[in-house]
């Protein structure tokens, strides 16, 4: 049993590593569902590739899903902030539902491939291979380096966009880069772990960390620690009680979120933003 659960746990480690970090940005920006929208766009790209005659898992198909993701990045970088009192979250939600519906329409024409395309969105972390883990680690490493090198600009734009504008930073351009890198991460993580699990990795550790501690670095440390131990608990529960692994981990994160909400409300002075 141990060797069976080792690869899923390793996958959880690297997924928590990048998503807990990105999650802090996502919560600061108030774009919680952007991962769903970008993952759905990538899937729609692959479907379009199939319709154009390029099978799944070919370089052409990858280029299609990349182009669709970049189109999403352009859209989201152009719609930043509130307009007439409507937040960007609305644009993200619209992009998600329209892409999902368009996928349904397109899939009806290619039902033979539907199973494989569904797999893009409902990856099963129980079957993750070491090769996949190494490839993903490499990709996340690149994105991590990008974020490390430009951390000051990216953080400034996420938390205080007005100041960034004053300093002459091109918000649109940096937003585009942020969303493009984000799209790269989400597309491969969703294929490994599925949308539910990726959403949990992204939002819940960051949410809990922001409830409990202040400052970027302490929050990142708290998010990583809670993410790793909660993943471990979910994987243990999956092995011990024979539950589908992804769903068990998501529920473990649900317990974590609930616990953090209770703790934060018992100690209201814990973290005043």
């Amino acid at each position, binding site marked *: *049993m141990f060797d*069976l*659960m080792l690869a899923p746990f390793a996958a959880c480690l690297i997924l928590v590593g990048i998503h807990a970090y990105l999650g802090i940005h996502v919560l600061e920006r108030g774009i919680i569902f952007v991962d769903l929208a970008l993952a759905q766009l990538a899937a729609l790209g692959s479907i379009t590739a*199939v319709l154009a005659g390029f099978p799944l898992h070919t370089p052409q198909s990858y280029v299609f899903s990349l182009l669709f993701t970049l189109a999403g990045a352009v859209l989201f970088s152009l719609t930043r902030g509130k307009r007439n009192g409507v937040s960007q979250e609305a644009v993200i939600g619209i992009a998600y539902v329209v892409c999902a519906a368009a996928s349904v329409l397109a899939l*009806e*024409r*290619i*039902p*033979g*491939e*539907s*199973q494989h395309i569904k797999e893009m969105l409902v990856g*099963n972390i*129980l*079957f993750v291979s070491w090769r996949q883990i190494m490839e993903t680690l490499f990709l996340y490493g690149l994105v991590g380096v990008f974020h490390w090198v430009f951390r000051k600009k990216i953080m400034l734009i996420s938390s205080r966009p007005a100041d960034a504008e004053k300093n002459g930073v091109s918000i649109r351009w940096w937003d585009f880069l942020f969303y493009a890198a984000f799209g790269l991460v989400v597309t491969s993580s969703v294929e490994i772990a599925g949308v539910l699990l990726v959403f949990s990795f992204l939002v819940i550790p960051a949410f809990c960390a922001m409830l409990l501690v202040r400052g970027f670095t302490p929050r990142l440390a708290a998010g990583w620690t809670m993410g790793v131990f909660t993943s471990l608990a979910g994987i243990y529960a*999956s*092995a011990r009680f*024979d*539950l*589908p*692994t992804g769903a068990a981990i998501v529920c473990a994160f649900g317990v974590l979120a609930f616990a953090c909400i209770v703790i934060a409300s018992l100690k209201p002075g814990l973290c005043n933003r």
Partner: protein
Amino acid sequence: MLKKIILIAAIFCLPLSIWAKPATAVKNIVASSQDLAYIAARVGGRHVTVKSLTSGDEDQHYVEARPSMVMALKNADVFVRIGMELDMWADALMIAAKNDKIMRGGSGEIDASANIEKLQVPSGKIDMSMGDIHAFGNPHYWLDPQNAGVIAKTIAARLSEIDSANAQDYNANAKAFGEETAAKLRVWQKRLEPYAGYKIVVYHDSWPYFAKRFNLIIAGHIEPKPGIPPSPSHIASLIDMMRREKVKAILCETYFNGKTTGSLSEKTGVGVASAPLSVGGVRGADTYERLMDYIVARLEEAFKK
């Protein structure tokens, strides 16, 4: 000198003898469905323990993997699967289990469809526009009771190869099961005889083997293409067709939406037979015989409506 030669020869032969030693245990049998588990248990008798990876009311097209499934395959001596691309979900489990005995082409992997006379094998190129088509033909072959005997023979032949000491038992068990099912088949055929040539509508294309055996004609499917839910215009044309062709019953898998079949039945006055595809799919259908009894009884009721 002689001792040395014998010693050297022995050393060289040692790995050979290990290699040549036949694997004799078939103690742990794992099957991908309850039907195959039931038949394998009948064939293996007291020599085996059998475990099914799925329950009887699960749709074999979509199965959620759990760790225990991988563990069961890790410890399996034999894995009996439906094959014909139906239980493809088992492929990832087999890779994760890393058990040489049951790997593709391994001695313990039994494709129960091996000796089945297959229906709906597509001729020519398969087009993605045709729906969720299985390249090797329709995989719901166990719903013809005659095929149950064929499956038992296929399993018995392989078990005998692996565990030759008990070959007699396996073959005798398979024969007994085949005869028992054949006798029951005559009873079922008699019960459905009054309805021979009747037209039925089914939900998914799970029933061609069953329909052929019992002389029923499948006039239409609620799914316009396998795996695709019905559109309003498809339902409308289905209702027209059912009235025109005088369809006498709707046969629907228990795990599909009861609302669609219910409204079809309401609009056309045709009875619905809701039946599981696998042993254990409903309470009481815990053997292959009882499963078939159940399906036949629901159909009789629907025809009488």
